């Protein structure tokens, strides 16, 4: 197994994919390396959140994804 990175909303366009599987474990530095510079730039912005295993991280730089985890990259939302 591996870690699946999900690109939500506009990040999918930026990444050129909706998801990407990478080797576990995956931390913040590792994430920034594998997502490409455009997405990495977004991730460093405060308004972009990260969820790991279905939970939004209070501190995204504390990311520590293990085998089988899904890491969702969550840009600013717009509903309604």
């Amino acid at each position, binding site marked *: 197994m591996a870690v699946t990175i*999900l690109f*939500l*909303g*506009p990040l999918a*366009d930026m990444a050129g994919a909706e998801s990407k599987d990478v080797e576990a474990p995956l931390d913040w530095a590792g994430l920034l390396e594998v997502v490409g510079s455009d997405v990495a730039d977004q991730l460093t912005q405060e308004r972009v959140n990260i*969820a790991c295993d*279905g939970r*939004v991280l209070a501190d995204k730089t504390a990311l520590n994804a293990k085998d089988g985890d*899904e890491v*969702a990259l*969550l*840009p*600013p*939302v*717009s*509903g*309604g």
Partner: protein
Amino acid sequence: MKDVRLLTEPFIPGAFVGPFTQANPGLGGVCTFVGEVRPNKDGQGEGQGEGQGEGQGTKDDWGVEALELSHYEPLTLPGMEALADEAIARFDLMGLLMVHRVGKLRVGEPIVLVSAAARHRRGAIDAVDFCMDHLKAAAWFWKREKRADGWHWIEPREDDYADLARWDKGP
């Protein structure tokens, strides 16, 4: 009663609101908001309406052909449930109905429906206001619209964030 749904197909608001009202006997009032996909362009340079972005520059004046709402399954519905619980407690509601579309929508289709039943009108109206502000700028949805030149992602306007901030409780 609480009824929170994500729908992938078009819906008729009245088909939800009628049974919801019936399911809350003894209510004093029901307030309902329905947001629809606007064709854009109100002819007054005001930008976009509900369910779409506003104030994103001149391309906003182009007609909207379709809207697509994406979400993130593990967060979106639980987030809506938590929002509903908060509204029920905060506004002393008897019932709350919250329906949100995902997927591709055409102009004129309902995107969102919030209906609150309460003993007093103030609670019902404020609850709808509260839920809409949160669904608009603090729920796990991403939306893009198709205009003549292709798809464009929409972010909340500054106004949406300002509307949301109205509900912050003091320290």
